């Protein structure tokens, strides 16, 4: 079965609110932090959440929030008390997919998606990530969870001949881009030396190649065409959207390629009618939780053959003035790792770019953009959204 969406009405993002991102938000509780983002999103969308939103979707995980059945605490800060709410244990783009589908049913005109990170509340972040490993096998070796990223990096770089210098340049580019993004936590100027001389966490993965956690929240408002017209909104249309998981098991999963990117992108391109993503999409926000992932994900998304993204990066093609701007927001490395909110970070940047609101990092004439998220190790789950002004 294919999602074409041809027979039904279009769905647009009509509002985005961001609170953060900062390494630690200690002055606001998680509810207060989400409330701040929600107010901004509703103001942007010109929507009263108590009257005009039909369905609310919250993306969060119990362990990360420190409360079991944590979704029970999601509604009020979104203006969703006594309303239709459901929670997704996953990335924000998976929430956008749910909102898209709910509007497409015709049952709902306006949907809201929320995701947040309260990483600084977690005193044992490494253990929570460790608990994501299979308890019978992988968890038995008591290694830092980045071990899975390290094994994958070595497989990817050795199979496709990707240099450490190229990976260092992903780190340099994204931290530098973050200097132009007021929502980014980790703007800085680095040299290759700074990246490559950093200590190994799990070889060949260095400390500097691993994104640092942040606190923050994003709320996104989506609506059908009828509401877009009534509200005279500044819409960004969803043209294609999909998500996919490769096998999660260490024994059977793909280690060299980003199979989940290939699978999800293929269907999203089909839905959006895109044949050549490299030429037809103007701006890209793709997961770079680990620096090598930016290159591997671009290849999985079909922009380059495996092993070839590094060359394009080194030629400057990924800068905001290059032919294929990638993570001009700073990406996960520059904005900070917001875990389940990473997908909405990518979405919020594409919306700003397509609306022409991206300030000093604006990609001139951007009409179509792609957001891609990955749920991080040990998952092989990714989600893609293709957005357009047209």
């Amino acid at each position, binding site marked *: 079965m294919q999602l074409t969406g041809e027979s039904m009405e279009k769905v647009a993002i009509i509002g985005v609110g961001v609170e953060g991102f900062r390494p630690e938000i200690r002055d606001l509780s998680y509810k207060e932090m989400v409330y701040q983002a929600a107010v901004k999103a509703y103001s942007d969308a010109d929507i009263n959440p108590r009257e005009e939103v039909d369905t609310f979707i919250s993306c969060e995980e119990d362990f990360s929030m420190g409360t079991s059945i944590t979704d029970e605490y999601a509604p009020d800060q979104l203006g969703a008390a006594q309303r239709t709410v459901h929670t997704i244990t996953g990335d924000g783009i998976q929430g956008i997919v749910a909102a898209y589908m709910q509007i497409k049913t015709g049952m709902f005109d306006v949907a809201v998606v929320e995701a947040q990170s309260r990483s600084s509340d977690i005193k044992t972040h490494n*253990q929570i990530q460790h608990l994501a490993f299979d308890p019978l096998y992988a968890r038995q070796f008591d*290694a830092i969870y980045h071990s899975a990223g390290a094994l994958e990096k070595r497989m990817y770089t050795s199979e496709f001949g990707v240099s450490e210098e190229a990976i260092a340049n992903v780190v340099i580019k994204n931290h530098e881009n973050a200097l132009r993004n007021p929502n980014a936590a980790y703007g800085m100027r680095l040299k290759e030396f700074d990246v490559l001389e950093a200590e190994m966490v799990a070889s060949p993965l260095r400390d500097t190649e691993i994104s640092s956690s942040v606190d923050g929240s994003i709320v996104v408002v989506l609506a059908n065409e009828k509401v877009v017209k009534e509200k005279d909104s500044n819409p960004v249309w969803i043209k294609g959207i999909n998500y996919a998981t490769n*096998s999660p098991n260490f*024994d059977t999963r793909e280690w060299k390629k980003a199979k989940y990117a290939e699978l999800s992108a293929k269907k999203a391109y089909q839905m959006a009618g895109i044949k050549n993503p490299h030429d037809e999409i103007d701006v890209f926000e793709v997961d770079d939780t680990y620096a090598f992932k930016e290159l591997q994900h671009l290849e999985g998304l079909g922009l380059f053959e495996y092993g070839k993204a590094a060359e394009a990066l080194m030629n400057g093609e990924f800068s905001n003035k290059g032919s294929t701007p990638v993570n001009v927001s700073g990406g996960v490395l520059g904005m900070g790792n917001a875990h389940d909110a990473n997908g909405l970070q990518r979405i919020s940047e594409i919306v700003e770019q397509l609306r022409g609101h991206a300030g000093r990092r604006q990609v001139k004439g951007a009409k179509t953009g792609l957001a891609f998220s990955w749920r991080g190790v040990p998952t092989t789950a990714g989600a893609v959204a293709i957005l357009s002004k047209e």
Partner: protein
Amino acid sequence: MLPTKRNAKHNSVREVEGSFPIHFHYTAGISTEKFFLGLKEKKILGNTCATCNFTYLPPKIFCEDCFAELGNDTYKEVPQTGILESYTEIYYDFRGDKLETPYFLALIKVDETDTMFYHKLIDTENPKIGMKVSAIWNDDRKGSIHDLNGFKGI
């Protein structure tokens, strides 16, 4: 980057301490129990989906590809040698504490299997992808993944 440990004592009015004490006994299941019992006898057991001509290690009761059930007759002992496909030297434990003695974890394609086997790489000075490795057993075997000490380059 690794989360920084907060040294400063935070204002107690700003935060309330809490934790979850959560404990489990995870059920091994048919295939993993067979696999662990095999390890106790110094045997590495995989199983094969005849339809897909694909051998799983560790074994499974179903084929991920064709979804057929893999019965008792599909299990077999696989060789105790394989090829090193990837490795990582671990400098931090699962808590994020720096290890005094780093160790290696690896992905190994055990001969006559089609999957990646995750285990330790031990006593191997210059690991290289593609090198041949051999299983090293623990003398004190209890039916666990640690009945194997790891794999060693040969």
